[in-house]
């Protein structure tokens, strides 16, 4: 191979000015983390709400939840980001559209909301499955004790269901981090985009991608470890996972 390896490249000044190539990676990592954390908050919030709706006795609410899930699950994330980024400002009233287009960090907000909603459909499915996996007697017992339906969910169903779905939620956490890279298509300068930029500036393609790969490995390992710790803390002795 006549490829010129140069691992020192990261300490060279980048042509963007104001820092080295390593600084570019760090700034990309920051954006990847910020987008992932915020999108994950949306995904958990919306996902839990829709997942609960899907488990309710009312057929109309269930249908609403299913429609939400199917719409968000059957369109590729990339297309959804394009809809939020390119289409939304055109179809809302003109004043709002102009405001949206003038936003400075539009790719960032679009990525957070688009990725958050995309992941929320997956979280909703997990939560609904977790609720369905609980013994039917739990709901009946809650209601028989005089709890209202919301109280039964709050004090009986949800604390159990969340413990059941923690392991699958771990992989959805990782998926959120990985999927944040799709936002480079709308111009978000996240980790993969920064690695690509280093390649374009310096032609040191393999060093740049190796660095990005190692960083993804590191943050995904840390995220997995944190979720495992959470699982252990939340475990109710003698209940659930063997």
């Amino acid at each position, binding site marked *: 191979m006549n490829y010129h390896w140069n691992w020192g490249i990261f300490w060279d000044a980048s042509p963007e000015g104001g820092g080295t190539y390593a600084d570019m990676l760090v700034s990309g990592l920051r954006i990847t983390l910020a987008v992932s954390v915020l999108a994950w908050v949306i995904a958990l919030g919306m996902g839990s709400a829709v997942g609960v709706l899907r488990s309710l006795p009312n057929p109309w609410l269930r249908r609403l939840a299913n429609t939400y899930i199917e719409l968000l699950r*059957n369109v590729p994330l*990339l297309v959804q980001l394009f809809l939020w980024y390119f289409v939304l400002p055109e179809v809302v009233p003109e004043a709002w559209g102009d405001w949206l287009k003038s936003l400075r960090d539009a790719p960032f907000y679009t990525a957070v909301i688009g990725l958050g909603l995309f992941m929320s459909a997956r979280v909703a499915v997990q939560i609904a499955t977790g609720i369905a996996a609980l013994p039917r007697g739990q709901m009946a017992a809650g209601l028989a004790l005089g709890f209202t339906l919301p109280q039964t969910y709050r004090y009986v169903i949800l604390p159990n269901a969340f413990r059941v779905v923690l392991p699958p939620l771990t992989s959805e956490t990782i998926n959120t981090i*990985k999927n944040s890279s*799709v936002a*480079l298509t709308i111009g978000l300068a996240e980790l993969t985009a920064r690695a690509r930029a280093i*390649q374009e500036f310096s032609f040191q393609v393999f060093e740049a991608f190796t660095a990005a790969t190692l960083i993804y490995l590191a943050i995904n390992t840390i995220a997995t470890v944190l979720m495992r710790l959470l699982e252990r803390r939340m475990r109710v002795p003698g209940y659930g996972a063997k």
Partner: protein
Amino acid sequence: MFAHFDFQAIVHALPYLFEQGLVFTLTLTILSAIGGLILGTALALVRIGGGPVLATIATGYVNLMRTLPLVLVIFWFYFMVPYIGQWLLHAPRPIKVGGFSSALLTFVMFEAAYFSEIMRGGIQSVARGQYAAGLALGMTGAQAMRYIVLPQVLRTMLPVLLTQTIVLFQDTSLVYVLSLTDFLGAASKIAQRDGRLVEMYCFAALVYFAICFLASLAVRRLQSRVAIIR
């Protein structure tokens, strides 16, 4: 709102979108699924019965692929394959690899990791006694796998494998980052040429939705049929 929506723009683009774009997307999806399934099954077999060294390598590969974003993997292969080709063919300079070949190779290698997890779960769910019975009947290990275990795995895991293929179908839209003309790429090129972003992206979303939704309904029906067999 949608006052300026121009259906004519979509109608004019239909031949290009479907004959170029969708054909590209479907070809890439089907070939990647077949290649990924074959390589994934091989990886699963190596992880289960390939000896400690090979099993560790296969496990490492699968975990690495599953930790990385697909976009990064697409870039990796796009830039790496020409150099690997040069090394394999002893060529004087990095070989030229077409966008489609590069994308196909990427998706086969990437999806193999996901298919191998499915196949591994399937193989482990087949009772061990069946494999042992095959050996007792005088079959070799490979024969017992080929004629007894794998047919059952393929059958029970078919719905999961197809669901993963629907995910793969959606993921192929990411070849956008290589500026290839898949379905989304075709829609995007027309959208930018004619300034019809709203029409093109809405239509693309609708087509993806229709295909994936119908396919997942079909998989669900299949699932209820397969479920009875066991």
